[in-house]
């Protein structure tokens, strides 16, 4: 996830203060120097950084905090609050008035991902809001941009209006709206050609398209990897069009995403969505608070819960939890669990939402393929073996047979059994942890007695290396 490296640095800076019983102004200054550097390295605009560090310093140096109880935690809280504020405070809800036809216009630089995002947005509105979108292709300049949108429309089974590249965008826009009316599309998503924000004639064209469309939403699509220039891009687009929101794309890369932070601050335009991959379902609503927590390494439990709710049957989950906590957990359950997790998306992504895990997982190798191997291994077991893992544990010949049958090694079978045992133990203990007692600056503290076996194991002879657990 994009903000990972940024969060590593900021967490280091915060660690300077966390745990200290008493804080001095000097401590805060030192911490903020680190925070400043890490933000600058993350491409956060330097003006934004200046203001941000100044605000935090003022608040953190408040007498009440420095002399109060638990000053370090209070400071961490200040940083978190300010960061949330920087990212936009409240989640900007994307609500469309369904009683009338809504028009959404996308704009942005070349290569920021407008066409793909148009497709993602159409899919989102059609699946999550049960709307009937029409995609409109107005990029008459880039070769094959129209074909690209048409292909995306076909993939999604969503209508696309285009007139090739013969006419001017504003003329096509007018007829697109008529088309949408006739065919009763309740939302029209308009893709426009990429342009440089300083290209005045192209910006004028966009203004004309805007006056024809009279859009309800004008969204700026911005590449998360943009450098210091992001702010000037956003200011120009906002200045000429009056942008209502933005979508940050390519956040699945390893960029530190500072552009996103600064753009919000400087233009005051809320970030509404984020793009997290090339597939057309990789679009998520942007939640400032959750993102702030993620940056500070406090995990993002809310998104995890959302994902679970969306993808996992509650009864299934409860059954599984009960089994886990009671220690009666067999390979059938394991397989079920694997399938649930696969439905939720990438394993690495999920892990990062769990408080504290981000830090621990840093060097762990989350290889999605291993999930497939494990499935093959379990599929190679007999029904009895799946129900009763002890059978395998006791019999070397069974283990060899499973390994041969699934084309994996005996060592992998052993590791699987080991992993499941450890998981059983971990979940048993988890039953006792009160989630409210988790300390935000050190989320693993509350889970003291359930430090996952991963760490202990690493000190061994490298046994179980590369093993994984949830």
């Amino acid at each position: 996830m994009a903000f990972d490296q940024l969060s590593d640095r900021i967490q280091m800076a915060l660690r300077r203060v966390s745990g200290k019983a008493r804080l001095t102004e000097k401590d805060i200054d030192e911490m903020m120097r680190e925070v400043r550097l890490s933000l600058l390295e993350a491409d956060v605009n330097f003006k934004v950084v200046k203001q941000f560090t100044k605000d935090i310093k003022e608040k953190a140096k408040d007498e009440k905090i420095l002399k109060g109880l638990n000053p370090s935690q209070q400071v961490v809280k200040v940083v978190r609050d300010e960061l949330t504020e920087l990212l936009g405070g409240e989640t900007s809800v994307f609500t469309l008035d369904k009683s009338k036809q809504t028009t959404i216009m996308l704009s942005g630089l070349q290569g920021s991902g407008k066409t793909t995002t148009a497709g993602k947005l159409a899919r989102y509105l059609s699946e999550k809001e049960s709307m009937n979108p029409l995609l409109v292709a107005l990029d008459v300049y880039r070769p094959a941009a129209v074909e690209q949108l048409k292909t995306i429309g076909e993939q999604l089974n969503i209508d696309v209006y285009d007139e090739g590249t013969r006419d001017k965008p504003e003329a096509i826009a007018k007829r697109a709206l008529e088309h949408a009316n006739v065919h009763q599309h309740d939302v029209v998503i308009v893709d426009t050609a990429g342009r440089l924000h300083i290209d005045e004639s192209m910006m004028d064209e966009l203004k004309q398209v805007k006056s024809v469309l009279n859009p309800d939403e004008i969204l700026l699509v911005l590449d998360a990897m943009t450098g210091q220039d992001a702010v000037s891009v956003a200011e120009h687009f906002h200045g000429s069009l009056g942008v209502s929101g933005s979508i940050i794309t390519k956040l699945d890369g390893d960029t530190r995403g500072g552009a996103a932070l600064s753009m919000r601050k400087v233009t005051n335009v809320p970030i509404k969505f984020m793009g997290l991959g090339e597939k057309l379902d990789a679009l998520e609503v942007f939640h400032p608070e959750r993102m702030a927590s993620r940056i500070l390494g406090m995990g993002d439990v809310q998104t995890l819960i959302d994902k679970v709710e969306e993808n996992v049957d509650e009864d299934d989950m409860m059954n599984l939890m009960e089994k886990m906590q009671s220690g009666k957990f067999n390979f059938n359950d394991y397989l079920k669990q694997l399938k649930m997790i696969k439905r939720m998306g990438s394993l690495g992504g999920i892990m990062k939402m769990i408080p504290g895990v981000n830090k621990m997982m840093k060097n762990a190798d989350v290889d999605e393929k291993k999930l497939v191997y494990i499935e093959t291994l379990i599929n190679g077991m007999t029904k009895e073996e799946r129900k009763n893992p002890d059978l395998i544990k006791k019999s070397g010949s069974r283990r060899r047979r499973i390994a041969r049958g699934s084309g994996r090694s005996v060592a992998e079978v052993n590791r699987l059994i080991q992993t499941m045992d450890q998981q059983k133990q971990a979940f048993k203990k988890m039953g006792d942890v009160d989630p409210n007692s988790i300390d935000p600056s050190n989320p693993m503290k509350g889970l003291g007695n359930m430090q996952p076996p991963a760490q202990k194991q690493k000190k061994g002879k490298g046994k179980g290396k590369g093993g994984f657990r949830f």
Partner: protein
Amino acid sequence: MGIFSNLFKSKKRKEKAQKYKIGMEKTRQNVFNQLNDLLASGQTIDDDLFEEIEELFIMADMGVDTVIQLVNHLRETVRLKDIKDAESLKEIIVEEMFKRYVGTDIVDTNLNIEAPLNVLLFVGVNGVGKTTTIAKVAHLLQKEGKKVMMVAGDTFRAGAIDQLRVWSERVGCLFFEKAHGSDPSSVMYDAIEHAKTQDVDVILADTAGRLQNKENLMKELSKIHRVIGREIEGAPQETLLVLDATTGQNGVSQAKTFNKVTTLSGVVLTKLDGTAKGGIALAIKESIGVPVKMIGLGETVDDLEYFDIEEYIYGLFSDVV
């Protein structure tokens, strides 16, 4: 003016640098004119001044580490030489930039296309302008009398093949494609076989954009690279990373990872006609030692120039010194 005026004695050089001056107009207005104001004579040298210099360079996306080193060097020099006037800082900055980025090595930014059949492989993240760059390079090489063939190696993104085909028609060069969704390595293999029968001089190979942290996609790229090398000895003659000049510090990460997977021979910096400062060119040179070979300065096929780092720095500072 010491080292600097010597470097730019030759008239030819100055003329060439003029080209950058025009292309980089925005950059100079934004960053380096400010530097000029900052370092006007009579300014006192204090911590605030250093901090402002620092911010100016950071604004150009030059890389935080580099900037901090540079500014520390400035502080040190000021202290040692007991410099009082801000104006003399200009010269020290320019000198240091040259030392850092030009050094003594002669950077060859010409494309290596001397073999009977050459392959230029274009790689990069999504949306940097690989396809457009290929069109521009094709145009340039055709003008030099080479027989060029484009290969549609982006079989993933919707419309990518069509986009390249349209360009090949506009530029008037050969074009090779297979169906959308084909294995890109097999496209390269077939393209090379085909090129061998067509008396082609240069193959320009497009690839799908990929974020450098996607391991599987990077493996795919390494396979493409391998297949090309197996079919033609010494190929690809050039592996060029296409990089959006508006990219921030992530550009360094892109350069490092792509370099690991495909051993880059050069960088093409695109979209330099924006307000982008392109300072990332300097950061990349410093981190992996690969030179920027070409820059894109606009949307038409003519908007591509060979790049020379000395001239680039000169372009940046021509108003300052």
